[in-house]
């Protein structure tokens, strides 16, 4: 088990290094001048001075500079927001995204799992309704759901603020908007898993042995059905935690998602690399965590790992 964990951590670090290197290469090779922010053109000598200041006049030097910063967990300055460093921006944005992402994942699991399980067991009208709901969650884009929720609860009913961040009441609307697609996918995964599990021999055996149906469903079928959901939860949580550009924009949530997009558009190399690195680290960490939980729940995985 320990060897398995070590190997996975080592692979994770290697993946992270590759992501970092590729991101760096891409940011320095796209056209566009990161130092130019307005319509006005910088004087050439001023631009040369700035390039020297930020070390962007020499890619090798710039890489060393960024990389040695990374080793100290210092992502350096940003071009677009000179009053803030990348670390400060991440320190402001990450907690926001973590809060929003965790509450959205929690909501998604609480809605999706029971909904999926229920629709697998009861195939009637209830099942169809649950499937429709799940389909809608997948198909309707978040900017539509978000705008509708804002209009209903913010403008007409006035029970939630129209965007912004800083009060508990600002949390539910973006949480629901962000949770819906995840919930829909989780519901589908659970449903498929549950249907699959219910067809298995061991379920028939359990039922034949006279174990109450309720216990068979939740004690025997559900753990098997939950495994694909669990694998999905790792990357999904990482994705939710690092923010969603659309949800953040619609609800004016100061999270990570907007920095991703804006940093790329502004050619803000430092900030972009910082965002990608954090995101990649989260994805790797959550995948690892999910695999470990998997191994803990399902002895077959553990057995594979040992060989």
């Amino acid at each position, binding site marked *: 088990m320990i060897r398995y964990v070590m190997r996975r951590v080592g692979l994770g670090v290697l993946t992270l290094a590759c992501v970092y290197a590729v991101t760096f290469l891409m940011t320095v090779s796209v056209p566009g001048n990161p130092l130019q922010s307005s319509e*006005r053109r910088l004087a050439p000598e001023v631009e040369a001075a700035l390039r020297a*200041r930020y070390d962007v006049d020499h890619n090798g030097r710039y890489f060393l500079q960024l990389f040695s910063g990374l080793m100290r967990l210092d992502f350096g300055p940003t071009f677009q927001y*000179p009053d803030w460093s990348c670390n400060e921006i991440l320190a402001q944005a990450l907690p926001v995204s973590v809060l929003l992402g965790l509450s959205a994942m929690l909501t998604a699991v609480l809605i999706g799992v029971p909904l999926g399980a229920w629709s697998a067991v009861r195939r009637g009208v209830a099942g169809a309704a649950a499937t429709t709901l799940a389909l809608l969650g997948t198909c309707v884009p978040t900017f539509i759901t978000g705008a509708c929720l804002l209009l209903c609860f*913010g403008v007409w009913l006035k029970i939630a603020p129209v965007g912004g961040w800083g009060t508990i009441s600002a949390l539910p609307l973006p949480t629901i908007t962000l949770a819906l697609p995840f919930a829909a996918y989780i519901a589908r995964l659970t449903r498929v898993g549950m249907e699959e599990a219910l067809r298995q021999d061991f379920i028939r055996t359990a039922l034949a042995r006279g174990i109450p149906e309720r216990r068979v469903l939740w004690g025997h079928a559900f753990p098997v059905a939950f495994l694909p959901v669990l694998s999905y939860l790792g990357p999904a949580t990482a994705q939710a935690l690092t923010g969603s550009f659309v949800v953040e924009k619609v609800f004016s949530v100061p999270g990570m998602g907007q920095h991703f997009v804006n940093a790329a558009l502004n050619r803000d190399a430092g900030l972009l690399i910082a965002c990608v690195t954090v995101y990649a680290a989260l994805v790797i960490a959550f995948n690892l965590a999910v695999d470990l939980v998997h191994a803990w729940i399902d002895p077959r995985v553990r057995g594979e790992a040992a060989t």
Partner: protein
Amino acid sequence: MLRAVIVLLIALLAGVYIAGKWISPRPRPDLRYVNSSDVHTLDPARMSWTQDLRLALNLWETLYACDPRTLKPVSAAAEFPPEISADGLTWTFRLREDGRWSDGAPVTAADFVRGWRRLIEPGTAADYAFFVTDYVEGAAQYASWRSEAVGVLTVLSRLAEGWSINEEQASVLATAECAEIVRRAYAEAMGNVAEPEALSGARIARAVLAWGELHRRVFEAHAAELDARFARVGLEAVDDQTLIVRFRRPCPFFADLAAFPVLAPMHPSVEEHRERWRGAPLTREGLVVYDSRWTRPVKTSDGAARPVTNGPYRLIEWRFKRSVRLEVNPHHRDASQIACRSVEAAVFADANSALLAYEAGEVDFIPTVEVSYDHAIFRLAESGDRPDFQPTPLAATSFFNFNCADAEVDGRANPFVDARVRRAFSLALDREAIARHVLQRGDRPARTFIPPGTLPGYDTPEGIPFDPEGGRRLLEEAGYPQGRGLPVIDVLFNTSGAHPVVSQAIARQWETHLGARVELRGKESKAFAEDKARRRFMISQANWYADYNDPTTFLDVLATGNGNNDSGYASAEFDALLAQAGTADDPEARMRLLKEAEATAVVRDAAILPVFHYTSVIAVREGVEGLHPNSRLWFPFSGVTVRR
């Protein structure tokens, strides 16, 4: 299994609880307005975005202020008007004695010199450094002396660290004022004189120690000379209350510039934030650089609040991408009379959400309503159904640059080097149709570069008419009858906002009226800027906003060699008219010359293709008084009253 689910739930709940600790309710400010994206910087010297300047003009008090109704300069930190010498070249500003910083200290003339000196430092990279370098005597020389030294010190410090340098950097060493000392030192180190341009990597590697020593010497000599050099700039704080500015050429509109927040004074405490190297307040590369955090509001251990500002408001809080909060500066002379005691600029990344917040009563004011259905907003405003939506004509023009300079673009012959072709394309554009049917949001069709009626004292020349027949005739004269022989016309535009539809409409008109074939090339902002800067276009979209109340704020753009002259237009006649206007004593004669200049470049030579002058809708909640709509969207909050 159940164990796993329970552990997972507990972990999630704990996460939510811990993160929830960051959230706390906040008091509502007197005025809350929409700040579309967060401010880029609160350092006035580095500003160029309207939302940044809007905060700066409330935080800092410049020599004069701009009256929001008339846009004319009025007394602020100094008494208006200044004393102007007979030749117009020496201006004496008398500072008011009751000017106070937010820490209670009096505002002095030296604070202004400090602020303006920061503005022209190369490390500041100010968009508006030209306010000082273009007009104040000796400022350009100081700035270029500094830039050159920074170039040399940068190269030397790279060499000292063992990095290779490119040819461009090597040539810096050869052309700089200190080339001699570089050459001598290199000769001493290597025992042989070599041209710095010819330095190979191997030699440089061997010379690392010598380069370090040389860098130190140049650095120390430069640092020692800094203040003596700056003394030659025509900025003089005679005493605490008197600031004398000497100009190198008459600048009759300098009172306007003096109301622009980039010319704000700086409190002495700012200098504590400078990066230092070897005891001198410069970086290793010779740049003047400040710890980026100096603009962020903090309470220091001795109870003082930073940053120290001298305007009617001071900075209380800046939560990145959320809000900036201002409160009245208790030491300001008008502090007791200001009704609006606190202001919050709240970030709304999405314009549609911002409008929803306004409709829900959460914000009081939107400086520009920029929703995707802005034509509907404009209709509501115009019909009088929503008196709180106020259409405001801006001193801003959306236009296209013709490439006047390159005979060939991407391997295709560029017909626009011929003024007749440019004029033909300009004549064949029905601007009325674009403003009325395409944009539908109150923008005015632009027949000239300068929006008529926005600059006091300036009479706009007769603009370019819509005359497709005349256009076809001119095109025939130029050798393209019915558009035959024209290459495919390449139009570059920025894909943001309304530019794509406007570009499509223009292309359609040219195809109809001139028989031209047009290829539209939309690009995302940064890629667009890159193509524009390298002049890889025949026609490219552009915008220009007035910075001050004088025609030169527009016309200088078209001067030969101006850094923002993307069209590459170069006309001796136009330049001569600008120069004549620059030295004219009589204000009326000056305006006449500028009018002639505009007629020459925009109407006769058609260097650019004006399309429309922007109109913006501002939204002010009923009960909020004192936010006067004006063509610069300039909103001082100290005169605002709010009734709930």
